[in-house]
Every structure is written in structure tokens, then in C-alpha cells.
């Protein structure tokens, strides 16, 4: 971690001097220095091998330290687990600095307590059209309601996660930031908005937070240094393989689940975790770092007129790779974002591109970004000849793809399974391919390896009480985690009832894992199953229609305490299913629309309504 003017109280000259010195120091020297500096301030003498946290504690005891509470609240709003992971990391760092951290999901946080909080740090992601994660919705609503308290004593900062290829980039983070300030809170560090490659900006934000807190206490800059060292120790304690250090897993099986004649292709992939020590639970996701399609890469190189073998930077540390390697493995080439277009416009001075980015062309820009990739860009704006060396480093790092895990680790020890629908479509006269799904479908076979990591997701977990009935709604590949759920229940011999709603286009070809559900139904692991095949009938039938047909029984299950799980398409299916649940509550429970909505909110708070939607 380098010191910068932006993340430290030093001048440019001081930063340069320190940056030259600090990397040369050994662990012992750093600790000695931090003690020395503290002692030099005349507060306490640190001798020997005192650890950094101790140093901080001693520092905080200093009479001239600002009267800042040592209590810090870290809240996260997480859909896929990234925010959760970052919030945990921040908490750990804060605890190492001697802060008393209360870490909690927004869904579990009692909003009445907000008034008492003095230091609040929020890590939150944004989904779809600028929407908060499910578990963050009630807190988001509360803050924006009249019931929200005045927060003059609050010091806070927000780390927002998002994706610049979406229009409402980091909207939820922005909402929280703005609202907390409106309510009287003081932003101790500016909000940081992270794109899909969030590791570095998130780490910088954490350092700023730690510095700000420590400075406010009159602590020395040792905090920043200390975090660097303890940070490394932390990741060791957790696991060798992670998002930033993926495990190369061998593919054990790669087959198409769709029968002949189907319009669809869905790959069932089995991967070996042998030797990784990676652990997961049903409901977790698997992250995969894919590679771009070689044909697209070659077309792009040709369109830009680049030399495939030219070396270009691929990392912040001056690492280099050939253009072709860089485009295959390091950079995203299938998605355009506004920031990227802006940078390219600046780099090339292209007037047409600049015009597209000007105010007044928002609609045109949005549709261009939605429909186009880099190859379109180079062709549409005649960018041939732009230097690879300058342009390529502007691209985003290729982001990992997350897939809901389709296996129970107890049913398949040492393995992890996923269910991936192959994405192929045509736009503007050219065939387009899902980066990861088509790589899996066309270019990977048993025996090949794939860089993966486990993404834990606490927001999609089987009920703690094994007797609790579960209702699972998962059309298409949304059924994947329920294969994990039922596998887990079968292995542990759980007695609770279960009900699965599944759907796709055609019964004959698209009934994913059909034989397995049939067996579980026969064995009683799955109590009942309802299916909807939309293209087999004159009128399209979807899962929500089957739910409504069974509204009486479904309501009875809810009244018995059933937990509801929804997995799959966010845009349409999840909304339709949500509305179906509301209708069932109104119809069978005699609830008003408001009461039905409250019922679902309360289910959500009790973790009895969990969604893994995308």
C-alpha cells in the first residue's frame, strides 16, 4: 500500500520520501519506528517488540487525543457477498486498531439504535436499476422515511459497490451518503464508488477510514502502516485461495443438460476442489475468472490494427503481456462503460465520440452502451491506429462471473457444481457470446482448469431449524442452489417439508436435473414439485401461475413458518413471484395490500424470504 497525497496528511514531497524509505524497512524496523514516533510525541515510550495495536491503544490514551468514541458500527448491504466480505475486512482492521466494532447486515440492524451510533461505516452494493440489495431495503426505506432521526453526532463514510456498465452506477451507496448527510451526519472520508474490480479502491477507502479515525484520536500515521502488515496476516488466517488469489480447479464434468431439439444450452459443470481447502455451503456462489473469445480478440486486434505480440501493461506493478494475452485474459472487451468512453474520447480527441458523451445525448449513449462492445466502437468511430499501449490500460480488468453453486459439499465432497446457461444472441448483424458461458460451452473440457473462488452468501441459507418447511422457486438455472439445498437435506436426513417450483420452455428438453428431482420426490426428500413449461401450451405458463394455482396450500405453508427462496432472473421473474406472493397473502390471508407488503418485509427480516437473483 503506497502513501499518496490523497490518503495521507503529507505533502507530495513528503509522500515521495516516505514511499522511498518505507518499502525498504523490515517488519521490526517499522514497528520500532512507529514506537519511536509515538514516543517522540511525548505520550509514551514503546520499547521492544510492542505490536501495532498496542501502540494504537497507548496512543489513544494520550491526553491530547480528540474525544472520539472507540465504538464503530459497520453495516453492510450485500446481495452476492462482496459487501459482506469487505465489511468483515474493515471490521477486522478496526478491531486490530483497538476499536470496538459492531458488524451487522443492514437487514439485522435495529434502526432504532441508529441515533446512538457515532461512527458508522457502510458498505453497500447496487442492483438492477439502482436498487438496494434485498436485505438493505428496509433500512434504506427507514432512512428515507419521516421516522429517520437527526444524526448531528454521526461521523460516517460509505463504500459503494457497483458496475459502471449500468446506468445507475453505485446508486444505493450514493443514496445512503446523501441521506446521512441530509440528516446531519459528517462524512469523515469521501464516499468511494467501486467498479467491478473493487479490491484496490476498497482498500484505499479502508485506509482512509482508519487514518481518519486515528487522526481524529490524535494517533500517529502508524495506523496506516500497521494495517498493511496486519492485513497480510488476516488473509493468511482465512484461506489461501480467494477472489484475489483464485484456485485453479480441474473440470471433472462438462455436459449439456438440455435435450436434443432445445433452443437452449445449459452446461452442468463439476469442478474439483481437491487440494484447495475451499469450503462452501449450499447457497454460496462460485466465482469464475473467464477468458475472452479468441476469435473476438483477434477481430479486435485486426480492427485496431495492433500488433498481437506488442507488450502492454496488465497490472499496476508494471507487469507486461502481449496485446493478445492481455485481451484474452486480463481486460474486459465485451462491455462498454461511460467512464471508458469518456477516457477514450479524451485520449483520441474523437469529436463524434465526444458528441455522444455530451449532455443531451443520454438516451443515445445509453442505447449505444447497451448494444455495443469494443469491436463495434472501433468500427463505428474509426479508432483504428490508436496505440495499444495507451488504450488497453484504460479497459476494466476482466471481472469474475458468479454462479449459484448447484451442489451440496456433503453430497459431493471435494467438488463444486454449477449450472450455466449459454448466452448467445445476435445484435447489429454479429453473433455475440456470453464470455464465461460460451467459454464453458465451447472451449473447456474435462481435465481443463479454471480459476475459481468461493463467494459466501449469508443471504441465501437453509433455515437453521431443520424442521422448517422450505418453498423454493427457481425457474431455469435458478434451480441450481435448490439442487444444493436438497442434496444437503438428503445427506443430513432432515425431516422438514420442501416444495419446489420450477419452469422453463419445454418439458421434453429443458427440465434441468429432472431425474434427480424425480428421485428426491420418490424418496421424500422433496415433498412436492410444481412445474411450468411456458412453450408447451398455447398460453404461456410461468412459475408464478403455478404458485397462484396452489395459493391455498402455499399460504398454509407460510403460516406453518415456511421459508421462501427465490433464485433466478431478477428483472421479470423475481418481481412476478414477489407479486404472486403478495396476491396469495391478500387472497388467502385476507390482508390489505399494505399488510401483505409488511408481511413479506417481516419475512425478509426473519430470513424467511431470501433471494438470489441476477
Amino acid at each position: 500500500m503506497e502513501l499518496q497525497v490523497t490518503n495521507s496528511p503529507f505533502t507530495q514531497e513528503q509522500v515521495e520520501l516516505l514511499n522511498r524509505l518505507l518499502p525498504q524497512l523490515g517488519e521490526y524496523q517499522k514497528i520500532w519506528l512507529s514506537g519511536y514516533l509515538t514516543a517522540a510525541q511525548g505520550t509514551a515510550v514503546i520499547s521492544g517488540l510492542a505490536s501495532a495495536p498496542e501502540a494504537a491503544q497507548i496512543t489513544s490514551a494520550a491526553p491530547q487525543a480528540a474525544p472520539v468514541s472507540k465504538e464503530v458500527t459497520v453495516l453492510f448491504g450485500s446481495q452476492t457477498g462482496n459487501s459482506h466480505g469487505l465489511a468483515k475486512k474493515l471490521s477486522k482492521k478496526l478491531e486490530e486498531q483497538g476499536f470496538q466494532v459492531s458488524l451487522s447486515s443492514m437487514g439485522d440492524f435495529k434502526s432504532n439504535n441508529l441515533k446512538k451510533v457515532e461512527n458508522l461505516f457502510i458498505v453497500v452494493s447496487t442492483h438492477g436499476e439502482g436498487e438496494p440489495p434485498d436485505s438493505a431495503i428496509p433500512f434504506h426505506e427507514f432512512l428515507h422515511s419521516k421516522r429517520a432521526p437527526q444524526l448531528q453526532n454521526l461521523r460516517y463514510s460509505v463504500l459503494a459497490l457497483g458496475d459502471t456498465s449500468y446506468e445507475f452506477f453505485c446508486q444505493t451507496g450514493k443514496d445512503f451518503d446523501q441521506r446521512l448527510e441530509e440528516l446531519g451526519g459528517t462524512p469523515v472520508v469521501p464516499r468511494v464508488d467501486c467498479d467491478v474490480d473493487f479490491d484496490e479502491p476498497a482498500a484505499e477507502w479502508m485506509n482512509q477510514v482508519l487514518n481518519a479515525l486515528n487522526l481524529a484520536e490524535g494517533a500517529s500515521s502508524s495506523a496506516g502502516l500497521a494495517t498493511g502488515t496486519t492485513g497480510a496476516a488476516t488473509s493468511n488466517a482465512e484461506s489461501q485461495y480467494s477472489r484475489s488469489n483464485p484456485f485453479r480447479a480441474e473440470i471433472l464434468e462438462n455436459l449439456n443438460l438440455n435435450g436434443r431439439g432445445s433452443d437452449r444450452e445449459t452446461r452442468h459443470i463439476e469442478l474439483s476442489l481437491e487440494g484447495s481447502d475451499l469450503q462452501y455451503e449450499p447457497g454460496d456462489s462460485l466465482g469464475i475468472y473467464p477468458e475472452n473469445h479468441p476469435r473476438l480478440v483477434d477481430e479486435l486486434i485486426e480492427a485496431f490494427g495492433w500488433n498481437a505480440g506488442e507488450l502492454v501493461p496488465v497490472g499496476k506493478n508494471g507487469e507486461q503481456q502481449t496485446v493478445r494475452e492481455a485481451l484474452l485474459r486480463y481486460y474486459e472487451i465485451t462491455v462498454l462503460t461511460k467512464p471508458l468512453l469518456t477516457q477514450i474520447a479524451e485520449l483520441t480527441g474523437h469529436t463524434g465520440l465526444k458528441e455522444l458523451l455530451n449532455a443531451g445525448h443520454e438516451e443515445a449513449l445509453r442505447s449505444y452502451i447497451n448494444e455495443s462492445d469494443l469491436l463495434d466502437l472501433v468500427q463505428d468511430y474509426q479508432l483504428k491506429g490508436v496505440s495499444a499501449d495507451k488504450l488497453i490500460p484504460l479497459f476494466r480488468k476482466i471481472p469474475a462471473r458468479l454462479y449459484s453453486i448447484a451442489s451440496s459439499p456433503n453430497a459431493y465432497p471435494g467438488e463444486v457444481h454449477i449450472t450455466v446457461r449459454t448466452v448467445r444472441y445476435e445484435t447489429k448483424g454479429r453473433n455475440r457470446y456470453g464470455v464465461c458461458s460460451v467459454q464453458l460451452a465451447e472451449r473447456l473440457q474435462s481435465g481443463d482448469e479454471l480459476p475459481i473462488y468461493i463467494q459466501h452468501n449469508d443471504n441465501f441459507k437453509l433455515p437453521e431449524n431443520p424442521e422448517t418447511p422450505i418453498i423454493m422457486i427457481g425457474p431455469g438455472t435458478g434451480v441450481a442452489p435448490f439442487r444444493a439445498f436438497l442434496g444437503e437435506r438428503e445427506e443430513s436426513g432432515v425431516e422438514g417439508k420442501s416444495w419446489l417450483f420450477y419452469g422453463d420452455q419445454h418439458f421434453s428438453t429443458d427440465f434441468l436435473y429432472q431425474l434427480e428431482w424425480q428421485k428426491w420426490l420418490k424418496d421424500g426428500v422433496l415433498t412436492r414439485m410444481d412445474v411450468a413449461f411456458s412453450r408447451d401450451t398455447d398460453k404461456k405458463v410461468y412459475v408464478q401461475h403455478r404458485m397462484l394455482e396452489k395459493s391455498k396450500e402455499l399460504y398454509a405453508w407460510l403460516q406453518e413458518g415456511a421459508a421462501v427462496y427465490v433464485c433466478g432472473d431478477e428483472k421479470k421473474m423475481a418481481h412476478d413471484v414477489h407479486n404472486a406472493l403478495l396476491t396469495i397473502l391478500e387472497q388467502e390471508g385476507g390482508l390489505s395490500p399494505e399488510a401483505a407488503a409488511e408481511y413479506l418485509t417481516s419475512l425478509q427480516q426473519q430470513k424467511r424470504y431470501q433471494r438470489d437473483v441476477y
Partner: protein
Amino acid sequence: MSDNNLLSPNSAPYSDVEDIKIRSNYLRGTLEEVLEDRITASIPEDENRLMKFHGSYMQDDRDLRNERKKQKLEPAYQFMLRVRAPGGVVTPDQWLMMDRISHSYGNGTIRLTTRQSFQIYNVLKWNMKKTIQEVHNSLLTTLAACGDVNRNVMCNPNPDQSEIHAQVYEWACKLSSHLEPQTKAYHEIWLDGEKVLDSKEEQEPIYGHLYLPRKFKIGIAVPPSNDVDVFSQDLGFIAIVEQGKLIGFNVSVGGGMGMTHGDPNTYPQVAKVIGFCTPEQVIDLAEKTVTIQRDYGDRAVRKHARFKYTIDDRGVEWFVEELKNRLGWGLEEARPYHFERNGDRYGWVKGNKGKWHFTLFIQNGRIKDEEDYQLMTGLREIAKIHTGDFRLTANQNLIISDVTTQKKKQIEALVAQYGLTNGKHYSALRRNSMACVSLPTCGLAMAESERYLPSLLDKIEPILETNGLRDDDIVIRMTGCPNGCARPALAEISFIGKGPGKYNLYLGGSFSGNRLNKLYKENIGETEILDSLTPIIKQYAIERNDGEHFGDFVIRAGYVPEVTSGQYFHV
């Protein structure tokens, strides 16, 4: 296995199929319930047994079995639906209905069967009700198209003697409806009919609650054509015509094709002519024959349950006596008759009253559209303007029948437009060929049949041409298993599947269908088939007597002995 001398099968314990029938409450079983199960496209085997009586049975695409299992998908279960029409006579509207349901619920093809019925394939369980309702609404039925009952009554379509056809066809229809099951189950399950609450009441005056021990087949032939293969029928009627008037029928009993490989107690048999009756006596005679089989047929061993074994085990004299007792009258002596052939004659013929008939060659009875042969579309267009009827022949061909002189031009134009063929450009061998459906849908198939015979003929035809036999009629048939759907035991050359790519080769059936053939080579592949046939064909071309048919020649030349009864088929 079965005991050939079993004289009192009723004392042996019934087979499990009898048990299913007993429990079914007149063919209801739990069909309604299992049809509702949306998690599988299959129905349990017991219910499938009952389904047959309703005219359908479950199959799966065997080509896809292993592949789908790997894909974690159940087999591609589907239902074959058989629609029967006595004598294979249907109206243009009924033809259009078949065309429609095959496209909306089936695989877009229709199979004309060797019993003058229709089959459509690939019907999913949840579409069965809608499909059967459409059939019913067009006044056809699937009831009793399969199952242990009297099947579709066959009748010579006889385009060149349409007055005789009208008289004979009338009796075919009467027989058909008289022997139709009376249970209300069909209406309840498929047609939303009211449920019969008291099932104790007598529902099947002829069949009883157990129905027959096995399927039962009736066919009516009009000499000189034996196209219905009257000697393959459990009960056959040979029309006796004097001065253009039907005076009655010779009656034959105890024919049947099915056998089991490796079980010599099972064999194909030709029916025996036992006498003559008048047209008015036909219904009574058929009913009593059916009740004798009902009471004496073997219900313990299904392979031994066909009427032919009842007759052979007890002797035809016993049957004639029993029949006389039940009828209260005896048969007259059989009248002379003569059969010339069992194949079809193709092309236009003029019948009575200035009506025309066009017999169309349909390879293996399959109606479908191919890129270069729009057979199905052509027939649909003809059905739209045709004012006569369609007649399915016993050889899986089709007659566009009762065409007026005015319509003939239009139909000729459509025939030309779609290149529909009278088969003239095919070899006579191909025109006399028949294959059963077999793979991939038939669960019994051991080898290919419909998908293979055409290409085998491609290879036999050059041998015939070399020997100048291209236009000589030779009856050739193939089945994928020994159950005999294409009546292979009566062909001059026939192939019965033993395993993938392997067939038993039989020779020596008669051209008119009154003599069984005999095993010539066992379990051979294509090369050996061609090697075996080549010298025989060559010798036949050189040494045959005037008008001598291939089946007769191979016996005279000593390739196979003559088989005079099914009991000597394996000897």
C-alpha cells in the same frame, strides 16, 4: 415356457396382465390420475397396459435413451396413438383431422398401418386428451385400436368392384361396432363423460371384465385379392360373390403372425377355412367365436394366448363343434375361391358409376413431407377438394377413392404438382415391400426396419435389374422383431430382426399369402443377405417356369421346404 399341450389353461394361475385388467374396473385404473402427473411424461407400466385398450401406448425415443440419461433427463417418453377405421375408409375431413393432430400434437408425420389404421407419434401425455377429443369429434375413435380386444376390422378396399366393396364394407362396420368395448371408461377419461357411479352393473356383455386373453383380429378379403392377408387373421372372411352380389363368406380361423425368438412353442400360423356362412350370420358367428376364445384362451401365458394356439391345442374340429353348440346352427361347406395376390395395384382405375380410384404408393406407409417430396402437403391439398373418400390399404398404401370425372382433372393436377407417385418408377419389389415401424419408437424392436428396408432395397434392386427382374412382383417384408406387424411370415422374402443390423432371412411364402415362409439363414448382416439372395435371384431369372412366383420357385429349387402349417414352421 408355455406348454404346447396345455388343454386347460384356465386352471393355471393368471398372468399379471389379467390381474391388472381385473383391478382396472373396466379399463379405468388410475389413468386419469397418472395423466395429471406433470413431473414425468411417463405413466406406470400397469397403466400403460390399460392405455392400450384406449388406443395408445407409451414409447420412448430409443435413439436418445443413453444420451438423455447422461443429461439427467428421463427417457423421451411419448405416446403412439392409433386411430382405427373399419376397412380403412375415412372422409377427406377425417384425413385433414389426422393431418392436423399430427402437426399440433405429434411429430408431423402419419403412419398408415398394416391394419388400415392411422398412427401418430410423439404425443405428450398432457396432449393426449385434446388429441383424442379431436379424433372423437371427427367421428373416428382410438378405442380398442390396441389391447386384448377385437382390433380394427380389415376389409379389402376393392376400388375396381365398388358395388361389392360397399356390401362387404357394410359388414366390416357392423362387425366393428358390434365387438366394440362397451365400458364408459373411454368417455370418462378422454371425453369428459359423466362418471358411471355403479360400476357393478354389467358393462361388457361380450368381453366380460377380463376382456380377451390377447388381441383378436378380423379381416375380410374379396378374391382374387388377398391384400388383407386373410390367413393371418384370427377370424377371416372370404367374400363369395356370385353375379355381382355378395352371397356370403367362407370362414377361416386361427391365423396369426407373432412368435418369440428361441421359443419353438410360439409360431406364425395360417388360418384354416372351416366353412361358409351367409352375410346375415356373420355378426353372430364373430361374437360366438370371440366368446369361445374368451372362455378357452390361455390367460396364464401371454405368448400362448392368441386364438391360433387355442385352435391348435384343441383341434379345429373341437372349435367347429363348440361354435355350432353356441350358435345353434352349423356352417355350410366352404365355397370355391381363388386368390391371385396379396399386394396392391397402383394408379388410376375406373370403378362403377363412372367413379375413379387412384392408388398411391406410400413407402412403408409413412406420410410426411421431405424437402424433395411433399407427400403430406400434397395429400392435404387433395383432401381439401376431394369429394369421395380415402381408403387405407392393408399394404400401407392409400387409395383416393370415388373421384368424379370432374374432380379427376384437379386431383391429377395436384398429383402431378406434388409428384405423388403410383410407384411406377420403382421396382416391382419395392412396390410389394412392407416394413413395420420398429426403431426408434417401438419398444419391442431388436433391429431397424422402416428406417432400413428402403436402403436395403436400393442394394437388392441392382441385382434384380441385372437379372431382368425389375418389373416382376416379389413380396418382401421386414420387421424389427418377431411379433409380426408387417406380416413377415407370409412374404416371399422376409427379414425378422434379431439384433442391431442382424436379421433372420425367410423364404418361400406364397404370392397370394396362403403359405408361410421358412427360415433360410439365421442372424445375418447386410453383406450376407445380399450374398445369399444374389445366386437365388439369378437362378430364379433363368430357371423359373412360366408365371412361377419367387416364393414357389425357392421351394421347387430346394432352398427351403414348403411349410404347410405353423406347427412345422420351426421344424
